[in-house]
């Protein structure tokens, strides 16, 4: 076990796995939308850490996973931004709009 953890890649990959588990618990158990967004981002960065850890060879991380992770971070941000805006709008006026269109 210690041998394995001494390998930098495996250590961070397993930390990523633990983060995913932690975030998963938060995502299903917490109700507040902001906390679920935090859980979403914790799982996301856990996945990226696992990606980087498993792509770590000797001197550094494989450039393809690195590029994919940067892409993934931006995509996660886009989702978070929309979710945050939707949460605020929902809190501000619930479901009724000045020109409700539901069902029409």
């Amino acid at each position, binding site marked *: 076990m210690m041998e394995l953890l001494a390998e930098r890649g495996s250590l*961070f990959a397993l930390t990523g796995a633990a983060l*995913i588990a932690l975030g998963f618990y938060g995502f299903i158990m917490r109700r507040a939308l902001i906390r679920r967004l935090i859980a979403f981002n914790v799982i996301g960065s856990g996945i990226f850490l696992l990606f980087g850890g498993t792509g770590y060879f000797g001197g550094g991380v494989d450039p393809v996973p690195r*590029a994919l992770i940067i892409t993934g971070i*931006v995509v996660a941000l886009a989702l978070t931004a929309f979710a945050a805006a939707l949460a605020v709008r*929902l809190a501000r006026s619930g479901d009724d709009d000045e020109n409700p269109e539901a069902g029409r």
Partner: protein
Amino acid sequence: MSLAFDLALCALILGAAGLAVAGRNLFGSVVFYIVYGVLIALAWVSLGAADVALAEAAIGAGVTGVLLIGAWQGMKDAGGLEAEITKSLPVRVLAGLGAAALGALIGFAVLSLPGHDGLTGPVAENQPALDLGNPVTAVLLSFRAYDTLLETLVLTAALAAVWSLTPARFWGGIPGPKHTTRPDGVMASFGRLLPPLGVLVAVYLVWAGADQPGGAFQAGTVLAAVWILIVLAGLRDEPRLSSLILRLIVIAGPLVFLGAGLAGALAGLALGYPEGHARTLILIIEYALTLSIAATLALLIAGPARRAP
């Protein structure tokens, strides 16, 4: 860095994540999330991936953190912050066991990986053809340019999605509250001093990105931060969202990128660059993207219009 440092860092990361996910106070959770994001960036430094560390710190911790604080404030003002219900112990134990099982399964999958050579070799082999020193930029703007193209449009789509939440009477108006600060206050001086520095850093990041860690996304985030600072300092107000110039800035980067891809398709190879001109074209795309990403991020943070035009 040593094993002891790595172990301590991983423990801190897990601790911060735990506090962010399970904490009692919602605002405290947001703060711990930002701390967590910074620690994650340190992990990337330890793994020798400076560009990911930059992206994680700037976007993962920074912009996401600002967004979460904004959402917290917005929901609090609306009186819509939900109270957390503490679930019963058996439910928590069950969920905990489920989460632990998931973690164990993933850990098991990681440990049973057979190991492969990765793509470092093919990247290094083909990188000289592009005349770029940074392998990550080569992947993002050439080998897997299609991913990056779609990703920039995900950001643009997210902006359209956020704008679609604008109450009808505010359409085309100005997002966020107006910020005023004392002209001789700390905030105002910050607002005057930091922007030139921020712009300098951003220009360096995108210029260096061709050969060293950096690039359009990191530079765009810094520029967006500069703009937010200017607004917070009360030096300038947010723009009207009906402004054509603003909209042109938002689409400029994706448009140049798409145009290059389609021009390639017309010449016979979609997303291909003519031989010998790859570096120049990639740099043009990067500069245009930086500008658009900066505007898009700043507008995503500003949110839908809240004041009439």
